[in-house]
């Protein structure tokens, strides 16, 4: 296993140490818990705070979106494992600016269990907390069972939009409503080419034959819709967009934002090629694109492959999408 690490058990803590040393002006860890990381200027008084969290290994998800116009704090779990309720509670208390806290994270069983407990504990201490779990992966469940879907790259849109809403001074109920609106209007589908390997276990997260790809494989290696032979970009992107546009009931004249997300070891040259195909396909449907994001927005260590996300837009979502944001891993002016 050729990875940059010392003792695999220390992978997360040593990696976090490097992040905090490199970006100490924007991020800090709490003294009482090195896995609780917040904006350097937290708490921001009077603003609804947004906390997030989940397993390590998906940078920029979750930690990469802690910053101005985005989230205020994150709890970091072991690689692909849920963080503890106690860490979430510590983050909650550290970012609470008196206007309440929104827990915004991906829809995964362990995270939900721990963060629901943290919410109860925070509410016992008179902190108002709401929760929204993003469930955008169309491969994991049909649309009428959306609450079972996994949360993947669509989380980026949730952070961006809910973060902007909070930064504009909205109430907790408003920020929650906005996050739920993103959840209802975003759809993502990914394709895996090759797996990543978890440092502590030394095991790859899935296996595929040499020229097979896995449509819908999850960011922890969860099985997808089907395995098939690799095809040309035009056909692959077209197939993925069929799923997405059907899921969102996307029609001509509508406007979307597009996210082409590399899962960790797919180069930008290829991601941009895919984006070109996306533009052509959407253009043929009469769908307009407002803002495109191409790069690594939600990875799975060194997994190869990419995901496409479409966010159906209206005036409100566009306004928040346009707002500036600044974290060590994502900047928009």
């Amino acid at each position, binding site marked *: 296993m050729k990875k940059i690490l010392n003792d695999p058990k220390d992978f997360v803590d040593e990696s976090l140490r490097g992040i905090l040393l490199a970006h100490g002006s924007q991020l800090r860890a709490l003294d009482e818990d090195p896995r609780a990381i917040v904006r350097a200027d937290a708490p921001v008084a009077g603003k609804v705070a947004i906390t997030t969290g989940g397993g390590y290994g998906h940078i920029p998800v979750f930690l990469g979106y802690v910053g101005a116009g985005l989230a205020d704090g994150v709890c970091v779990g072991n690689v692909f*494992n*849920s963080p503890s309720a106690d860490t979430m509670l510590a983050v909650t208390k550290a970012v609470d600016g008196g206007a309440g806290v929104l827990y915004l994270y991906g829809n995964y*069983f*362990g995270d939900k*269990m721990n963060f629901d407990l943290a919410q109860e504990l925070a509410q016992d201490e008179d902190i108002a907390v709401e929760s929204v779990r993003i469930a955008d992966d169309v491969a994991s469940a049909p649309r009428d069972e959306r609450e079972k879907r996994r949360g993947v790259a669509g989380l980026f849109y949730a952070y961006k939009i809910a973060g902007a809403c909070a930064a504009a001074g909205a109430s907790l109920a408003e920020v929650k409503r906005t996050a739920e609106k993103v959840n209802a209007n975003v759809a993502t589908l990914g394709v895996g080419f090759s797996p990543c390997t978890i440092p502590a276990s030394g*095991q790859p997260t899935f296996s595929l034959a040499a020229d097979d790809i896995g449509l819908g494989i999850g960011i922890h290696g969860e099985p997808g819709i089907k395995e098939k032979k690799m095809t040309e970009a035009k056909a692959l992107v077209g197939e993925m967009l069929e799923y997405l546009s059907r899921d969102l009931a996307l029609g001509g004249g509508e406007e979307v934002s597009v996210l082409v997300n590399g899962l960790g070891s797919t180069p930008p040259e290829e991601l941009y090629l895919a984006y070109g195909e996306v533009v052509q396909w959407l253009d043929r449907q009469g769908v307009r694109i407002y803002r495109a994001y191409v790069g690594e927005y939600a990875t799975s260590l060194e997994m190869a492959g990419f995901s496409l996300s479409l966010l159906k837009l209206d005036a409100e979502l566009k306004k928040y999408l346009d707002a500036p944001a600044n974290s060590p891993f994502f900047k928009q002016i």
Partner: protein
Amino acid sequence: MDKLIAALQDFAAASKAEFNRIDGLQGDGDLGITLELMVEALTEAARETTDLKQWLLFSGTKVRKKAPSTMGTLVSFALTAAGRSLPEAAVPDGEAFRQIQSVMIEEIKKRGGADSGDRTILDAFIPAAAAYSEAIENGGTTWEALDKAAAAAWAGAEATKAMAPKTGRARWLGDRALGEIDGGALLCAEIYRVLREIYG
């Protein structure tokens, strides 16, 4: 209490690798580590109190902090709920154990959202608690009840080999999990075995 702690420590050390292996087939391979951390938490709690109710409450909090995996979190909820349900200065007798088992099962069902047949710890725990309860009602000793419970837990764990998972990370495996025993159910069966040996 000391005998229980010592027995659990030996058990955890001896079976850590095997639980990691089984869990690796259907989860993220950390069940053995979770077991070790949970036993550390129970040990620390036992150093702070010998009162059953307090020990359960302290254990619940410590397990939550030390072992935040799904199993650890569910066990921590269950221990805390069991502790809350006992009266002050509760005596560790057959009736108290019956209540502890019943409350733990309800809490795991509530928090985990699973039930019998979903291929989880409950598939061993529920039959074990039922067997224990029946034995106590029929006038059996604690050992006799634990003996029946351990047998029922073992049978329940074996039965998980034929179940496809409905919850947790194993759910994504579906039919690929058939033929393997569920790690959580096996853990439960082994704990009952340890308890039976102590009380024997």
